[in-house]
């Protein structure tokens, strides 16, 4: 067996020489796969890194590199999970959460691990930072005040535990600045600049805060500010400019509505099997469009669809599962579908049961129809 392994290794080594002497994306991708199959993951990643430098635009090589990374991580993940099961240590949890967050880009899983770990190791600043980062991402997606508060809590805790935790302080200062708590942000940045005097992000934020000093808010106004952000579904102009310092530019909000898109969507919707009625309205209840087999039922349906959507949005918030997207309600006389997107509510009533792929299609088309709002 050892002899066979040794021969296999020699074969791969000579293949590697040949592949780099006469490189091609296909040959290199093949070599990487062979190293992965022979479980020599260090070699697989080494070859992959070198290959991607030669052919940075090769999708095959990028895919091979990512696959090798995933397999390598898989081994590491299993080892860490075993460690957690047998004798849980803070470092196991920190490493595992970090792998999911940074290497595998699975932020939900990283968050779950970090939350579980903090129950055992409440003073792990690294885990607080991961929780804070995930909460901050969620806040920037859904603008729910609970996510902001949780993010701030975790970053504050991390920096209290470890005053040298740069990422925690930078994120804390950033969040405070984004919602207009300029004095709070400045206090954090002053501490941060004792660790490192040069940070272009901090300099840019400070410049923006000085430019818009009159728009700064006190901590006593935080509830009001967060309610406003949550209602609007976006930060104010200064907040967005601060966010832009850290992130690539996003789609502008408030583009011109395309009512024709809505009409087309509703017309198509009326062809749904068992269709009875549908309405699209703003979150405030202004009807944008409707269709019904029996028009006399529309007013009541609109009112109840609004009520159900408000309830579902509130339930999602209280459950801490993020912003409400859609609900499917099956009852004796049919199915009701309620969805939120871009400040709009869809209410759809059909007789009978809707298949899951039908539901998905309706939701996707609704999102596309209101995407210009």
């Amino acid at each position, binding site marked *: 067996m050892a002899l066979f392994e040794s021969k296999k290794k020699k074969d791969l080594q000579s293949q590697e020489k040949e592949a780099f002497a006469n490189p091609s994306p296909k040959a290199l991708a093949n070599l990487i796969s062979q190293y992965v199959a022979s479980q020599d993951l260090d070699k697989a990643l080494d070859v992959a890194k070198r290959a991607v430098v030669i052919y940075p635009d090769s999708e095959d090589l990028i895919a091979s590199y990512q696959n090798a990374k995933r397999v390598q991580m898989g081994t590491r993940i299993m080892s860490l999970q075993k460690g957690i099961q047998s004798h849980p240590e803070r470092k196991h949890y920190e490493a595992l959460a970090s792998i999911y967050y940074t290497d595998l880009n699975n932020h939900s899983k990283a968050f779950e691990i970090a939350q579980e770990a903090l129950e055992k190791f409440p003073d792990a600043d690294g885990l607080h930072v991961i929780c804070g980062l995930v909460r901050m991402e969620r806040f920037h997606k859904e603008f729910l005040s609970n996510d902001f508060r949780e993010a701030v809590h975790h970053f504050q805790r991390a920096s209290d535990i470890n005053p040298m935790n740069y990422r925690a302080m930078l994120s804390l200062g950033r969040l405070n600045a984004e919602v207009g708590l300029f004095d709070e942000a400045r206090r954090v940045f002053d501490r941060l600049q004792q660790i490192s005097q040069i940070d272009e992000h901090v300099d840019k934020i400070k410049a923006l805060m000085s430019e818009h000093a009159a728009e700064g808010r006190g901590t006593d106004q935080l509830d009001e500010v967060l309610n406003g952000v949550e209602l609007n579904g976006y930060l104010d102009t200064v907040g967005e400019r601060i966010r832009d310092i850290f992130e690539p530019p996003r789609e502008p909000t408030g583009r011109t509505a395309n009512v024709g898109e809505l009409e087309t969507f509703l017309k198509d919707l009326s062809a749904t099997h068992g269709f009875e009625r549908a309405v699209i309205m703003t979150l405030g209840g202004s009807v944008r469009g409707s269709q019904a087999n029996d028009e006399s039922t529309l007013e009541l349906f609109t009112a*109840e669809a609004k009520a*159900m959507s408000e309830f579902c949005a509130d*339930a999602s918030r209280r459950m801490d599962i993020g912003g409400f997207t859609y609900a499917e309600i099956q009852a004796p006389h049919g199915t009701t579908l309620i969805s939120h997107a871009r400040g709009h509510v869809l209410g759809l009533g059909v007789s009978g049961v809707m298949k899951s792929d039908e539901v998905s299609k309706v939701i996707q088309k609704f999102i596309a129809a209101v995407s210009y709002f």
Partner: protein
Amino acid sequence: MKEALEQLAKEIGVKGSLILTKDGMVVASSLQKHLDENVISAIASTAIRAINDSLGKLQNGPFQFLVVNAEFGKLSLIECGDVYLVVVLEKQIQSDLAMLSIQSAARRIRNLGSMAS
């Protein structure tokens, strides 16, 4: 009933579940540590009342099955005779497969309920 919930807890993507009477009492639960039974049961009870109230006005109720989808998770409620099965799920699960397991658990609970009566 607890056994049905423990079986369900083994399914990928299920974060926890509980069984609620129609007046909001928790009969049994199996929840991951970070989930608060009181919070979930309160939200579920209110959901049942609010949604059934709306459906009643539309002369279509009470609901048999409700799933609330959100950005980072799902909540499903299934009527099982005298009780409701409430399941908290991850967002990124295969809906059809998960629903099969949940419906199976709901059937067991419904049968247990009818045997008890």
